[in-house]
């Protein structure tokens, strides 16, 4: 008797002839062996980048925000650009783990663990920017509403900047819980096959004494489902609230109702590109091509072309509204500051248009969707484009505001601003390298769960089932 059935027409999610033990072996083996030379090289470079970032921040904290090239007109520059960019990247992880779970997309099982880890690290990087942008970072706790001796002076609950505080911290907490609750059973698998005392002890602590009891699995399933149900509106709300930072202001180019869906689509777009960048490397280095298959990469490329097209529609809608509203300031922001290639930042706008709207359209071709080297190249292009999007939105809207006497000619970052950004890359990749070394990069239990229906070797046996008469089939499966 087969417990589950899936048509052979669907591409297998796990290639090769696997049984349960082989799945554990393949995914957990990299944790138990010494990492290769590439890992050390990558880790060393990441830590070096992180240290450069720490030094850049040391300059900023010691000498003040004047270390950055912001001025009164361009008050938000690289810092907020990078903040929005990193938060956006985080969104793909939650989309894969939560929304695709609710939509019952089987292919999420191969990529969700790494994508969720990416979410957590990306949100950690994102959080640094607004915190250090405050200037006196040692007073950062002022953003929390707590009874204080200053009145009490409370925070402004009407402000989108405060909504951001709540949104980002909730997002980080919920993502972390979601990720960790999924990790517990897999960490128990590592613990139970550990050969060394230290590994047994450490993985014993982090696996919380998991036994795999049926009752515990039942609760675990309920927990995952409800967390997915909570994370789905949460992920939409987070980038919606980030877009409110702009949309509730009265700056031309920001004050539009299209921002929330446009930002959410852009976030998923850039996030999937980052997942591709990371997983194409991970599957190769950790030898996981049978679990993260071409089918997985193709599915993610389909999401990229869909969200890229939504973003493209949003760009065109913005241009149309700038013309149709007949608002002089809106028109100036769009048709001079952005779309005029000869204006100071015109190159950034057209770079964004090319990277985000034109280039992902190549993914309409199946051959290119399934080409790994090309996908890797495109994933980098998309993230460059999405960085430009945030830069264009922020800087081109504010460098020439309503009062020409306060126009700023040209804003370009200082070395310490760049250093801060480089530092968050260092933080992100340092965390990701450690994750890839010490944690199961693929959800072992979830792969085992889909193995009997979607494994390549198991699907071959479905021939017999597919030849059955309807009555026989119904007799066997209906219960």
């Amino acid at each position, binding site marked *: 008797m087969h*417990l589950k059935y899936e048509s052979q027409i669907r591409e297998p999610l796990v290639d090769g002839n696997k049984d349960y033990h082989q799945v554990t072996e393949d995914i957990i083996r990299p944790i138990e062996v010494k990492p290769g030379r590439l890992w050390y090289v990558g880790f060393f470079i990441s830590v070096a980048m992180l240290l450069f970032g720490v030094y850049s921040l040391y300059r900023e904290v010691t000498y003040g925000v004047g270390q950055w090239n912001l001025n009164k007109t361009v008050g938000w520059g690289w810092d907020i650009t990078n903040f929005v960019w990193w938060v956006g990247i985080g969104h793909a992880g939650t989309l894969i783990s939560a929304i695709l779970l609710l939509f019952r997309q089987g292919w999420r099982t191969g990529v969700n663990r790494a994508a969720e880890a990416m979410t957590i690290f990306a949100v950690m990087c994102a959080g640094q920017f607004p915190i250090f942008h405050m200037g006196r970072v040692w007073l950062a706790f002022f953003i929390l509403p707590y009874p204080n001796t200053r009145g009490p002076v409370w925070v402004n609950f009407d402000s989108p900047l405060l*909504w951001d505080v709540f949104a980002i911290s909730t997002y980080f907490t919920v993502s972390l819980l979601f990720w960790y609750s999924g990790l517990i059973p897999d960490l128990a698998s590592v613990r*139970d096959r550990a050969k060394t005392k230290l590994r047994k002890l450490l993985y014993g602590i982090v696996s919380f*004494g998991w*036994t795999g009891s049926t009752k*515990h699995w039942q609760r675990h399933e309920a*927990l995952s489902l*409800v967390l997915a149900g909570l994370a789905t509106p949460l992920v939409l709300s987070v980038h919606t609230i980030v877009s409110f930072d702009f949309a509730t202001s009265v700056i031309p180019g920001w004050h539009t109702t299209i921002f929330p869906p446009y930002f959410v689509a852009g976030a998923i777009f850039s996030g999937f590109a980052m997942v591709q960048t990371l997983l194409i490397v991970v599957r190769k280095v950790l030898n996981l091509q049978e679990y993260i298959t071409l089918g997985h990469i193709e599915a993610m490329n389909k999401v990229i072309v869909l969200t890229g097209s939504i973003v493209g529609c949003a760009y065109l809608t913005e241009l149309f509204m700038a013309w149709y509203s007949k608002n002089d300031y809106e028109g100036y922001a769009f048709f001079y500051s952005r779309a005029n290639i000869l204006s100071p930042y015109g190159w950034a706008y057209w770079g964004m248009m090319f990277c985000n709207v034109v280039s992902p359209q190549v993914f309409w071709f199946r051959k290119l969707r399934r080409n790994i080297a090309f996908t890797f190249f495109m994933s980098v292009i998309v993230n460059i484009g999405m960085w430009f999007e945030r830069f264009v939105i922020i800087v081109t809207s504010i460098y020439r505001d309503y009062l020409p006497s306060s126009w700023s000619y040209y804003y370009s970052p200082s070395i310490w601003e760049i250093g801060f950004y480089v530092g968050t890359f260092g933080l992100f990749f340092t965390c990701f390298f450690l994750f890839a070394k010490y944690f199961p990069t693929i959800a072992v239990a979830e792969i085992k*769960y889909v193995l009997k229906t979607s494994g390549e070797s198991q699907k071959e046996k479905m021939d017999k089932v597919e030849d059955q008469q309807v009555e026989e089939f119904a007799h066997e499966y209906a219960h």
Partner: protein
Amino acid sequence: MALKRYVVACFDDEEVLFPAVKRVRNAGYKIQDVYTPFPVHGLDHALGMRETSLHTAGFIYGITGTTTALSCMGWIFTQDWPMNIGGKPNFPLPAFIPITFELTVLFSAVGMFYTFCYLCQLAPFVKKHHFHPRATDDLFVMAIECTDRTNVEDLKAFVSNAGAVEVDYQVAESGWWFGRYDKQQDLYAEPHSIGY
């Protein structure tokens, strides 16, 4: 929780496990639990477990978050320190929605996670009895509780016959509850304790 005696039957295929569960239960034996490497759907019903109420707990935590957010913001802006922010009302419900939503989600998620850990008795440094180390790898491990009247040898033969690939007899603590050890027993002196 006292020490109990178990016959431990290991299966390597869930398609054999299901009929075996049925047979063991029909024969009148009490299955203490089945330990599986991944969630096997329908096994909870086959074992006669009731549905979990974790969802309900999540809902209660959620509405706690909603009321906390609305009442705190309302009290602060209308009672404790009313401020004129651009002439907006002191209780602007639309502007309170984002934070209210975030706190609903936060309370619900955190509360559910801790409730899950509490109900399953999961925490760092917790030591439980593991019937078989491969229960987290590729074996489905069924622990059948023995009473004074159980003939262990008969039961062993019965489960082997039902398709178990490995059968074993163990004495173990039946459960674990935070901060309450059973005084009469020594968890580390058991035949198959794997030592963490």
